[in-house]
Every structure is written in C-alpha cells, then in structure tokens.
C-alpha cells in the first residue's frame, strides 16, 4: 500500500513543520515583546522620579535641566492641534474622493495612491527642509508653531488618507449594492451609510496619525524651532516634546534625568491617545451629522 505509507509519513513532517512555525512565531513575538518592555521599562524606571505635577506645570530652568516642561506641553498641543485640524477634514475628503468618486480600479486612483505611498515613505528630514523653505520662508510664516503644524500635516496626510481609505472600503458589498439599487445620492450614501460604517476606522486612522505626529522630531527642528519659552501666538517659535528630549539628551550636559521624564510624559500621552479607538466601537448613524 504505497499510498497509505505516503499518507502516514506525510503527517509527521507536516506536524513537525507546524511545530517549527509555531516556535518561530512565538519566538518572534517574545523577542519583540522583550524589546518593547525593555524600552518602555527603561523610560519608566528612569523617568518616573522626575515626573510630578510641578514638572508638568512649571517653566524650565537652566536650559531644561531643572524646572518643568509647561511651555513644551503647550507648544506641542498647539502644533499637533494645528496639524490635526488640517489633516482630518482634508484627509477624510481626499479619502472619500479616492474611494467613492474615482472609478474603482481606475488608473487615476492608482497613480494617486502610488504618489501618496511615496510621499508617506519620504524621510521626515525632507519634510523639515520643505516646510522651512515653503511655510517659513516662502509664505513668510517664519519659524513658528503654525509652520510646524502645517509641515507635520503635510507629513502625516498621506498616511491618514490611505488609512481612511481602507476604512471606507470596509463597507460590505451587499450594502453598496443596496445603495446602488436604491439610486441614493452620493451625499445620502456617504452621510447615512458609508461614513457611519467607516467612523471607527477613521478614528483609528486619526489616532495613528496623531501618534506619528507626536513622535516627530526632525521635521519640527527646522520649522517650529527649539525656543524654550511659552509661546504667545501661533506665529511664535516653540519647542515640542520630542525636540525637548532630543535637545536635553544631545546638547545639555546633565539633562538626562529630565529627558527621561519628558520621554515618559510623551509615552503616556501616546498611550492615552491610543486608547481612544477602543472606546469607539460604533457610532449611531442618526447621531453623526456631516453636512
């Protein structure tokens, strides 16, 4: 019975391969998990002593070696806020255009997607140079929170559009056909069907983009600068968390303790923001009003 023999002998190698695959998968996860734990643990252990309420609320002293990070937090909030105010509406609109208005599988959409992916993969230092030349110099916004926010917006927009687009594509085929057969206008279809279904995905996309923006250093060095003072307006320069960490660690002897404390604040911010999508499971269609 050659067939029977072949069959039974093919079982064992298969299960051995299965075991190896499993071991590799678990091993990979363990390595990754250990790496993440190490980094997070390091930041927490070294930073936790420096973090206190006064650290968050006080002005820095001695180039940041002492005192707190209040102006840094304010600058960061303004830069990120500007960035997201630009990114969310324009990104959602662009994603809608890309997924709903252009012909499905058409060449125009494919070219635009390729362009977005290339821009999304561009090193952030290039965005910093571009932002400096365009916003700071050409548009005359100088090195300012506004320039930085707009530069960041350019940087995360492609990523946000692509993530939103995949959220929009999550509308089931049957639902799409119902919309077609009922000949609903695009406006109604978007407002009552597509956007409510895509909403949780859009929130995730926004959070992911925001985290990316929070972590950005290079693009902001050139555009918001590293002025360690409380900003008075959008057109003032400022220093964001990531730049502050960079500066303390690289340029300020004895700045390490506060660099770690600032890193812990940044980490906590990313973590808290990352929890938002978990709370947004569904949005009631009749509550979401977009006109």
């Amino acid at each position, binding site marked *: 019975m050659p067939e029977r023999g072949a069959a039974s002998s093919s079982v064992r190698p298969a299960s051995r391969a299965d075991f190896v695959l499993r071991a590799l998968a678990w091993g990979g996860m363990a390595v990754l998990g250990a790496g993440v734990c190490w980094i997070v643990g390091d930041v927490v252990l070294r930073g936790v002593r420096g973090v206190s309420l006064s650290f968050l609320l006080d002005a820095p002293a001695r180039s940041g070696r002492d005192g707190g990070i209040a102006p840094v937090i304010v600058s960061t909030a303004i830069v990120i806020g500007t960035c997201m105010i630009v990114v969310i509406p324009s990104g959602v609109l662009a994603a809608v255009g890309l997924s709903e208005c252009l012909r499905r599988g058409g060449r125009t959409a494919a070219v635009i997607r390729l362009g977005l992916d290339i821009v999304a993969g561009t090193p952030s230092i290039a965005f910093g140079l571009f932002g400096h030349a365009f916003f700071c110099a050409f548009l005359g916004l100088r090195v300012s929170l506004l320039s930085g926010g707009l530069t960041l917006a350019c940087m995360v927009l492609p990523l946000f559009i692509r993530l939103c687009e995949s959220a929009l594509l999550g509308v089931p085929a049957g639902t799409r056909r119902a919309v077609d057969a009922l000949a609903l206008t695009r406006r109604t279809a978007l407002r*009552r069907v597509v956007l409510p279904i895509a909403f949780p995905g859009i929130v995730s996309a926004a959070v992911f983009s925001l985290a990316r923006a929070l972590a950005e250093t290079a693009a902001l060095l050139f555009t918001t600068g590293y002025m360690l003072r409380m900003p008075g307006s959008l057109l003032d320069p400022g220093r964001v968390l990531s730049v502050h960490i960079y500066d303390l660690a690289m340029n300020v002897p004895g700045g390490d303790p506060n660099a770690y404390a600032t890193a812990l604040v940044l980490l906590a911010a990313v973590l808290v923001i990352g929890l938002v999508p978990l709370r947004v499971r569904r949005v009631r269609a009749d509550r979401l009003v977009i006109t």
Partner: protein
Amino acid sequence: MTSADPDCDTILPWPPMEHTPPCCVAAPHIEVTGLSVSYAGAEALRGVTLTIPRGCVTGIVGPSGCGKSTLLAVLNRMTDAIPACRVQGSVRIDRAEILAPDVDLRSLRRRVGLVFQRPNPLPISIADNILVPLRDHGLGDRRARDARLESVLRDVGLWEEVAHRLRRPATALSGGQQQRLCIARCLALQPEIVLMDEPCSALDPMAAEVIEDLIGGLRHRYTVVLVTHNLAQARRVTDHCAVFWHRPGAPSLIEMGPTRQVFEQPADDLTRLYVGGIRG
C-alpha cells in the same frame, strides 16, 4: 406574448389585491429584444428576446451561471457599475428604451426596484431603511413618509413585529425579517417593476414561505420578475416562466410561456428534462 390565460387566477390560492390591470392579459410591460451581455469578453447572455407582461409574476429559472442575475441587472442598469460589462440589444419598458445612454438612472431605478438574494438592510434603524431612501428621492412630506413607512411594513407583514422598535438597528432583525424589510424598502419607492433575485434562497423554509406568499400578493399591483432555483416555488408562485440554459457557446433563453404550459407541456427537450428534475 401569449394570449389571455384563463387559468391565471384559478391556480393561485390567494385573491388578487386589485383587479387593474388584469393578470396576464397580453399587455407587455418589459420587452427585451436581442439582448446580449458579456463580461470582459465572456458571454453571459446571447440573443435573448422575451416579453414580460404587466402585473404578473414572471419566473426566471435555469441552472447556475446561465445569466439569470445578469438579466435582472440589465433591467435596472446595475450592469453600469461593472466596468468590463458590455450590453447589446434593446430593453424597452413601456415602449421607452432603457439602454440608451441618456436614460436617468435614478428614476429608472426607482421605477424598477431590486431585491437581492442575501438580505442587505442598510446598517441604520428599521424606520430609516425606508425613510432615508424616501427622503433622498424627495418623496412626500414628513407625514406622508411616515404613513408610507407604516403601509409598506404592513404590506410585507412586518408592522406588528417591528412597530415597537422602529428605531432599533435593522441588522438586529432575523434573516427573514430583514428580507421582508428589504422588500418593503423597495416597495416604498413605489416601483412599477420589482426584480427579485432568489429572494428566499438564503432563508429557512418557514421564512421562505412567508416571502413566497408576499410575492403572490404583489401580483396585479406590480410587475414582478422572480429568479428562483426552486422549481416548486416557480410553479406555485409564477404566472409565466422563462427557462434559461447554457446553449453551446453562451447562455440563452430556451423557452418561455405560461407557467403551467412550461411545466406540463414543455416545447423544448431540455426544459422537459430540467423541470422533470433530470437535468440542471
């Protein structure tokens, strides 16, 4: 078209809802002439010519892949959404050509409603499934729309079951209820023609029976085109029947006539084998 069929009402267990237009008088509603459809070069229908009478339930039967859904998709131009799909020939509804490029798709699809095989309620509330399309098409004021909501839900026998939870999500209904909601949604736009693509095949037998009775009740008020794989159902519920088959080369129509004739004295050998359960 065939001449008046005296059997028309007697074979049906339920009374007609209205007597105008009378069933199965030779009043053509949809006239398909020389219709050929291909998807990216692969023929899905070849040279189909048939007439669908007004106010009747016309069945479309045939083995899988013989172009039944394709025919329905042509009748309300859902084929437009498929880039590689080519449609040739003529389809006239009330003598007006609907394949012409200047046809207004929105009003065509309102006149020709489509119910799918899998229930596909919109992921909004039960009431909104009906009210949103009405509002979108600008039909009636608020009061009229609410009245229409109740009347179509009554027509599909859903009112008693959902009246107290109209604001709940439609996706929480059972499959059979969802399908009745989809039929109600289609009827709410007051179409003249209702296309149904195997509306019972995703449902259990009890729910299917409810839908089947409902389809019988649509006769005379609407022209119904019903695709079904269930020959017993075709026999029970349809007045006319069209049999499609893969002819060598491409799927096409092999026989059309009053249902009783198609099932009892088929003119075509393949039909005989098919309705006898021997092939297909």
